[in-house]
């Protein structure tokens, strides 16, 4: 009789643990989605600001051309080439800002402050996203998660290789 009770107890514990793990994993997947959504919005905004800069007086015609190209590339890139395109945009913006430290007009400096505020936020968003991705990958590597397919059909999140110091 006690044997049966023990088996039932063990099974219940296992079920509890499995649901616990599944909830945990579900939460992590949500976190990855949210942090990516954040980052995506910020990067889109940055591309828009880059375009505005390209059309303003800050950029000379040559760098304006470069910047417009890079911004469109970053906007249209699919998921695989996204990080390369964004890094390219970072590089172009960096080049331009390096040159134009001594800028004057109010409208221009407003654009630049907007850009630097965005950059600060992007830096935080990248850190949050990276952390969410690595945590999820860590939990999904657990044997028990793989045996019981606790992740369901959710795709394994991939790390985006952003240069952590954009600009």
């Amino acid at each position, binding site marked *: 009789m006690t044997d049966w009770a023990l088996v039932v107890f063990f099974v219940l514990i296992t079920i509890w643990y499995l649901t616990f793990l599944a909830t945990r994993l579900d*939460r992590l997947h949500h976190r990855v989605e949210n942090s990516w*959504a954040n980052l995506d919005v910020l990067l889109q905004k940055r591309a828009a600001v880059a375009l505005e800069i390209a059309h303003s007086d800050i950029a000379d015609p040559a760098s304006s051309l470069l910047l417009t190209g890079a911004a469109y590339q970053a906007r249209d890139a699919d998921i695989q080439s996204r990080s390369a395109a964004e890094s390219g945009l970072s590089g172009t913006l960096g080049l331009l800002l390096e040159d134009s430290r001594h800028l004057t007009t109010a409208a221009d400096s407003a654009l630049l402050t907007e850009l630097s505020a965005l950059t600060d936020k992007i830096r935080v968003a990248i850190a949050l996203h990276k*952390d969410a991705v690595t945590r999820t990958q860590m939990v999904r590597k657990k044997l028990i998660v793989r045996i019981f397919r606790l992740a369901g059909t959710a795709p394994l999140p991939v790390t985006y290789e952003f240069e952590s110091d954009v600009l």
Partner: protein
Amino acid sequence: MLTRCLKIGIVCPYSWDTPGGVQNHIRDLAEFLISAGHEVSVLAPAADDGNLSSYVVNAGKPIAIPYNGAVARVLFGPVAFSRVRQWIANGDFDLLHLHEPAIPSISLLACWAADGPMIGTFHAASKRQKIIFAIGPILEPAIEKLSARIAVSEAARLTLTDHLDTDAVVIPNGIFASHYSQGTPQPQWQGNTIGFIGRYEEPRKGLSVLLEALPMIARFAPDVKVVVAGPGDPSEVQKSIDPQLRHRFTFLGKISEQDKANFMSSIAIYVAPNTGGESFGIILAEALAGGACVVASDIPAFDDLLGHGEFGALFASEDSTDLAKVVIDLLRDQEKRTQLAQVGRSRGQSFDWDIVAKQIFSVYEMSIVGSEKVKLASDTRSWSRFLSKDDK
């Protein structure tokens, strides 16, 4: 910034009525957020219900436990847990901001109980402890629920990556920098004065290092004076001072914020000889903002805050000879002192609440995107949903 007004719940792990860095940080942050138009509720343990600010909710009487080499006044247990759950259920919060969620306290309980956007701020910096191997796996699922982690310094971030293997965004502690930059120099504190503020009876504040260095300093700067401010009983310390040097010391006791600002703008050098246990060094940020020339021990937190010596001079921690050397150099070189104070002042401005709170708020914004409000975790579990459906 977001125009929408948020409902923010902040959890303070330590007793609200005992003074401390974390409590001050939470109080300033809460008041800043309220003045920016947000609704804030702070849950904290407190021994006395009487004189709590209107935004503080008492979680119960704290108990004193030894933790990390000091006595922490925290609160946990089943009664506290049900209070925390009640606070979360009634609060209808957009997000929770938990402070120090990795120690046994109501912060950890809130992290267990809640589901939704949560942010954790880690204040402590300590060396890797063996015990973490045992408690790490228990903490991990809870810490994982935090949608963003903030560390107050590089030292705190390293502690976090060491102990819990997760990264954090570094956002420094805030000060009201404009307040400190408006001090008026007081003649009685001017001249060749060395300033020190802190609970000087605690050995880790390192006043003894300064005492040991003083005979050497006095030999080169005969008119040097030391002004010590902070709560404590000076008679014990005075006994340990060489009688010939005793007249050089002034003990002010606890001073007001206004006096602190005046103090920082009057003294020649501010010395922070702390030997460890410091994670950020808020007093250094205040000294910098107040325009004092700062000399500090080279413990990681101070080294980081002073930009490896760019914004203030550093000396080898616990080495009184080195301290004496650095102080004598600076006392003799007025120009270098002014130059250090000047770069330090602008560094101090970067810790202003205006800037720091904006950074914290942008982390808030990011963690509430796409999430619902904070709920009790037990309500969202599948079997509870299943059961409540049956009820209907």
